[in-house]
C-alpha cells in the first residue's frame, strides 16, 4: 500500500496535475483571503474556509480524475491487479496519495491564520475546528472523485462526472429548502424509500417472497408510526436530506465545534466510497 501511495504521490508532481491543483487552489484561496480578511480587516477565518468549500467542485476533479481511469487506459492496472497486492491496498494507497496532496495544500494556507494572528485576535480552537472540518469535507469529495475515476477509462469524463456529482450535492442543499414538509408528503417519501429498498432486495436475492415480505414489513412499520405519532412525518424529507448532507454538517465545524457524530459520518462516507470503488474493480474482473 505504501508503495502505491508513494508512487501516486510522486506522479502528481511528475505530471502537471499536482501543480495545477495546488496552484489553482492557493490562487483562489489567496484571492478569497484578500477579499474576505485583508481588505475588510476581518479576522473571521471560518467565513473564509466556508466560502472555499465551494471551490471543491472545481479542484477535486483535478486531483482525482486520473487516479484509476489512467491505469485502465494505459493498461497498467494489469500490473497492479496481477501483483500480490490486494485491491483494497491499491485503492486506499491511491486515495491517501490524493488526500496527502490536499493536506499539504491546506497546510500551506496555514499562513493565513498566522498573518491574522500577527495583526489581530483569532480563536485557535475555531481555526482548528474549521480546518479539521474543511479537511474531512474535502476528503469526502476526494472519495467521490476516486469512485468516479474507477467508472471510466477517460480522464475528461471522470473530471466532468465528478464535477457534476459535487454540483448536484450543492444543488440538493439549495433545493431541499423548498421541499414539502407536511405529513402526507412525508408518508409518501417514506413509501418511496421502502419501494427503493424492496427493489434493491429483489435485485440482490431475486426471490419474490423475500421482496414481498420486506415490502409488507416496511409498510407495517410506516403504517404503525403513522397511527402512533403522525407528527414524526412532519418535515421528515428535509430532516433526512439534512442528515445526509455533507455541507450541512460542515457548518458545525466552522463555529469551532468538533461534533463526534459528524466526524464519524464523514469517515463512514469515505469508507463507503472506498468500499464501493474496491467492489467496482473486483466486479470488473467477472464481466
Amino acid at each position, binding site marked *: 500500500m505504501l508503495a502505491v501511495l508513494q508512487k501516486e504521490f510522486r506522479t502528481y508532481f511528475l505530471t502537471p496535475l499536482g501543480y495545477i491543483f495546488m496552484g489553482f487552489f492557493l490562487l483562489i484561496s489567496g484571492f478569497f483571503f484578500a477579499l474576505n480578511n485583508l481588505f475588510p480587516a476581518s479576522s473571521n477565518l471560518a467565513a473564509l474556509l466556508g466560502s472555499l468549500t465551494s471551490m471543491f467542485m472545481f479542484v477535486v476533479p483535478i486531483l482525482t480524475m486520473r487516479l484509476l481511469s489512467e491505469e485502465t487506459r494505459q493498461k497498467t492496472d494489469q500490473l497492479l491487479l*496481477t501483483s*500480490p497486492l490486494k485491491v483494497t491496498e491499491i485503492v486506499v494507497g491511491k486515495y491517501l496519495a490524493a488526500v496527502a496532496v490536499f493536506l499539504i495544500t491546506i497546510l500551506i494556507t496555514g499562513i493565513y491564520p498566522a498573518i491574522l494572528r500577527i495583526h489581530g485576535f483569532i480563536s485557535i480552537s475555531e481555526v482548528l475546528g474549521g480546518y479539521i472540518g474543511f479537511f474531512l469535507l474535502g476528503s469526502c469529495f476526494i472519495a467521490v472523485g476516486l469512485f468516479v475515476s474507477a467508472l471510466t477509462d477517460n480522464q475528461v469524463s471522470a473530471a466532468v462526472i465528478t464535477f457534476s456529482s459535487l454540483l448536484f450535492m450543492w444543488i440538493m442543499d439549495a433545493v431541499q429548502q423548498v421541499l414539502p414538509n407536511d405529513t402526507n408528503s412525508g408518508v409518501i417519501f417514506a413509501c418511496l424509500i421502502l419501494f427503493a429498498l424492496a427493489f434493491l432486495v429483489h435485485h440482490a436475492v431475486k426471490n419474490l417472497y423475500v421482496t414481498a415480505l420486506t415490502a409488507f414489513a416496511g409498510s407495517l412499520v410506516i403504517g404503525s408510526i403513522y397511527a402512533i405519532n403522525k407528527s414524526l412525518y412532519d418535515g421528515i424529507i428535509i430532516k433526512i436530506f439534512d442528515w445526509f448532507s455533507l455541507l450541512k454538517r460542515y457548518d458545525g465545524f466552522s463555529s469551532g465545534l468538533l461534533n463526534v457524530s459528524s466526524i464519524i459520518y464523514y469517515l463512514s462516507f469515505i469508507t463507503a466510497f472506498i468500499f464501493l470503488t474496491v467492489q467496482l474493480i473486483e466486479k470488473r474482473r467477472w464481466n
Partner: protein
Amino acid sequence: MIQVENITKHYGQHVAVDQLNFTVKKGEILGFLGPNGAGKSTTMNIITGYLSATSGTVKVDGMDILEYPEEAKAKIGYLPEFPPLYTEMTVSEYLDFVSAIKKVTPAAKKASLEKIMDLVKIGDVRGRLIKNLSKGYKQRVGLAQALIGNPQVLILDEPTVGLDPKQIIEIRNLIQQLGQEHTIILSSHILPEVSAVCERVIIINRGRIVAGDTPENLSKSLAASSKLLLRVGGASEAVLPVLQKIAGIKFVEVQGVRETGTTDILVEAEKDKDIRRPIFKALSQAELPILMMRSLDLTLEEIFLQVTTQQQEVS
C-alpha cells in the same frame, strides 16, 4: 506447476474461452498459438488472476488463483500484450516501484535489479523516461518487470511483437535462457517463434484447444500421408508408368519441368508407408536417375492453417 481445469469465459453472449484444459510442468516452455482473437490473451489474463473465469479453476503451484490470490500471484511474472508501463517515470523509478509492489526486500532489490537490467540489456537507458523509449526498449522494460521478484512462472503475451528482427532473436534467446530456471507460457501468432523456442505447443482457435504436442510430433501426426517431391532424369511419359506400378503409392502428379531433360513429380504414399526404397529400385531398373528426392513435411504454418480451418468447417 500450472493446472488449468475447464476454464470458460463468457463476455455476455460471446464465448471467449471454452472449456480449456491443460497443465504445464515445472521448467517447461509452452507455446500458445492461435490466430488473433482466439482467446490467448484472455486465457493468460485468467491464469494471472487479472480476469476471473466464468467457470473452472486455475492452480499455480497447487494454489488456486482465486482462493489464495496473493500467494499465487507472487509466483507469476506477467508480461501482458501491452507492457504495463508508467510512461512518466524513468526506467529505474519504474522498476523500483514494481519491486516494491512485488514485495522484494530493499536488501535484495539492488542486486536483483542489476541482474535483470543486465539480462534484458536496459542498463544504458535506466535514467530515461519510459515515454521517450523505443518500442523495443519498452518491450524489454516490460519483460524486466515480469522478472522482478524471481517468479517461478513467466507468462509472456506476444513478447516479440513490434520488435525488429535482431531484437526478436535476442528476446527469443533470452526466453530460452530463462526457460532453464522458469516455467514459461508464451503466446504468439508467429509460428517460427513458437517452434524455435517452445518444447510443447498448444494451438487454440475460437477459445478451444485444437491441437497440442511438441512441434515435431504435430507435424508428423497431422501429415496424414507422406509426400515426396522427385526430380527424375527422363520424360514424364517414361517415368509415370514406372512409378504407377509401385505398391503403396496413392497418388502421382507431374509438377512440370524445371530443368531441361528432367521431370518434377509429386508422389503421395499411403499412410505409414516408406516408399523411398521401392521408388529408387524401380527407377534405377528403368535407368531413370533420381536427381532429387525431398520429403514434404508439413511446416507449422501448414499445420496451423489446417487445424484452424478444419475447425471452421466443422462449426
